[in-house]
């Protein structure tokens, strides 16, 4: 695939890896915020080929994993409401809420449909005028603009039966909260590539400036991640802390204005609950009052019942980077991808699922 396969080339990787080995002398701990980066790192065995001076840590950038049970319970309650079709990305289907997952509720007869795009959800609303179609809006700043676009589209079509349950989240506030907690000491941050494509690399300036942590925006192919690590290592060795873009084909300092504009037109920041990190101010998105008629929170009287957190699950600690899946007593011992207790084991980019699939018994 053009502009994809070339960035997986083994021969080219050797060159970057050589350079990393040559340059890296100071022990350094880098965090990849984004679940997609975690998958790339494990899938290609990147930890194995990096020098021992570098320690990699996975962060909370998995929108599925950080969705709180209370929020998922709302979606499940909506699915159990007569006359409602809940549409969702595949990622959320198997995540257990306090009692059930969307997939289990579907098996009990609820109308839950998986969609690849919000465009599909809007079509379902058009084709089912007597039903109310709710789209479960998960994802960060990459996804929120697409959901905003779907709302504007629904507005233009005068659709009266399309709603969004927004549990969208914003990345910079949670990274700030993580750094403020003092729980993790980082020497570098691998910044999310597609979130940055939308919000721009300047969104990370505050990290370099206020926390003196080098930041490099990375793409998702193995060569991208290696290049990013190389740039972080260079900053560490030179004693720098600035924001750089490794993913130059996809990211600009100012981001992509139109996507941002649409996102801000439909959504505004609000406090949001992050699994394992509690409520973080201005870290979520809710629909503005002008678009309230599309807001599932307003249109429905949602009663999800009491929230229960799964016993023994340390997803929260894992998301904050203070524990690894191997530290969890439930890991592969009651909690598996087939029978998950917490979301980190369900999401294909959750740390636990990644460790389970690629790293069990491999030590690193």
């Amino acid at each position, binding site marked *: 695939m053009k502009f994809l396969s070339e960035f997986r080339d083994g021969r080219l990787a050797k*060159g970057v890896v050589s350079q990393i080995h040559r340059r890296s002398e100071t022990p350094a701990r880098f965090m990849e915020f984004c679940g997609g980066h975690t998958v790339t790192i494990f899938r290609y065995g990147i930890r194995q080929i990096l020098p021992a001076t570098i320690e990699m840590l996975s962060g909370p950038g998995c929108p599925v994993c950080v969705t709180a049970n209370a929020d998922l319970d709302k979606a499940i309650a909506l699915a159990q409401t007569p006359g409602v079709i809940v549409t969702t990305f595949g990622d959320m289907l198997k995540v257990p809420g306090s009692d059930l997952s969307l997939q289990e509720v579907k098996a009990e007869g609820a109308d839950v449909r998986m969609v690849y795009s919000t465009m599909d959800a809007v079509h379902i609303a058009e084709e089912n005028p007597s039903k109310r179609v709710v789209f479960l809006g998960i994802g960060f700043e*990459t996804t929120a*603009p*697409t959901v905003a676009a779907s709302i*504007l589209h629904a507005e233009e079509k005068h659709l009266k039966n399309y709603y969004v349950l927004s549990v969208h989240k914003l990345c910079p506030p949670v990274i700030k909260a993580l750094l403020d907690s003092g729980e993790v000491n980082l020497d570098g941050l691998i910044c999310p590539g597609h979130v940055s494509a939308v919000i721009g690399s300047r969104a990370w300036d505050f990290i370099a400036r206020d926390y003196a942590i080098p930041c490099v925006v990375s793409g998702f192919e193995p060569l991208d991640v290696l*290049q990013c690590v190389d740039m972080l290592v260079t900053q560490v060795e030179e004693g720098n802390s600035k924001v750089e873009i490794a993913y130059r084909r*996809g990211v600009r300092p100012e981001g*992509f204005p*139109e*996507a941002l504009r649409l996102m801000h037109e439909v959504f505004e920041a609000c406090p949001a609950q992050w699994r394992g990190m509690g409520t973080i101010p201005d870290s979520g998105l809710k629909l503005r009052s002008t678009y309230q008629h599309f807001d599932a929170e307003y249109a429905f009287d949602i009663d999800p019942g009491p929230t229960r957190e799964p016993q023994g699950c340390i997803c929260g600690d894992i998301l904050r980077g203070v524990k690894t899946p191997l530290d969890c007593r439930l890991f592969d011992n009651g909690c598996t991808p087939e029978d998950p207790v917490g979301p980190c084991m369900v999401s294909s980019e959750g740390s636990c699922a990644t460790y389970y699939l690629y790293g069990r018994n491999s030590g690193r």
Partner: protein
Amino acid sequence: MCLAIPALIKSIENEEADVDMGGITRRISLRLTPQAKVGDYVIVHTGYAINILDQHEARETLKLFDQLAKAAEEER
């Protein structure tokens, strides 16, 4: 996170485009990238183009990797 892949725009109709992603084709929305043209590569996430890929930068990055690879090969 944010699975998004490069796609080549083959044709545009209003705010939608037919794109080619390595042999499979799909209709996507250009609502977030109204300035995209036929022949552009866009980055597609959940059926929307969220960005226009900078082909020049892509080639420059690959050139850089190639230089590093050659240097590493010469060392051996």
